[in-house]
């Protein structure tokens, strides 16, 4: 079974702090994604990556950056956390480029910025 592991399930951070959300997948998937989920807004794509050291902006990249130094690891970075970034963050991976590929999600990281 594919496993996508997010390092932190629940975090509380202060406004202005730098926040790292880590994600690791164990199935040698090419593609990795970061989504944000908020009530009534569904799943919104923040950033994605189709290869190591490669990144592409999704629909809502403002206030975020990402890093993919190794194939299995994709990190989401909040340079200066703000209260409007309080949300659930979902990491995901898929085998290869192409819309026909199933996405596997991690369990999510609940971030509260105070």
């Amino acid at each position, binding site marked *: 079974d594919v496993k996508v592991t997010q390092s932190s399930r629940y975090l509380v951070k202060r406004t202005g702090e730098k926040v790292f959300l880590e994600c690791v997948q164990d199935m040698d998937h090419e*593609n990795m*994604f970061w*989504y944000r989920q908020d009530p*009534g*807004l*569904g*799943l919104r*794509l923040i950033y*994605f990556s189709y290869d190591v050291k490669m990144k592409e902006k*999704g*629909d809502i990249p403002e206030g975020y950056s990402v890093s993919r130094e190794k194939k299995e690891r994709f990190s989401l970075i909040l340079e200066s956390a703000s209260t409007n970034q309080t949300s659930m963050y*979902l990491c995901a991976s898929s085998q290869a*480029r*192409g*819309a*026909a590929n*199933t*996405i*596997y*999600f*991690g*369990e*999510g990281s609940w971030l509260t910025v105070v």
Partner: protein
Amino acid sequence: GQQVMQIPQYQHVQEGEDFTTYCNSSTTLSNIQWYKQRPGGHPVFLIQLVKSGEVKKQKRLTFQFGEAKKNSSLHITATQTTDVGTYFCAKGSGNTPLVFGKGTRLSVIA
């Protein structure tokens, strides 16, 4: 990315009643995928539809892809409390990432 419209946003049903959620796009889709997210959980893949007019079944769940490949539906027959959760459709197009609908949250009253 261009959204897919998913309706209704919420649905409350009595256990044993049927449930349907609809997904609509203004553009032709190469495929559509459906995911289920249980309360407190993460989205899990249910199925993918690729062919025009395709119908697939998983026990009490029936998935349809429209003839024009612009809409899809998920129908649950005789809902059970285990069906509770949010159902998302996601549209696929070329090499771009999946675009998810906002989801339909299903509540089942025992």
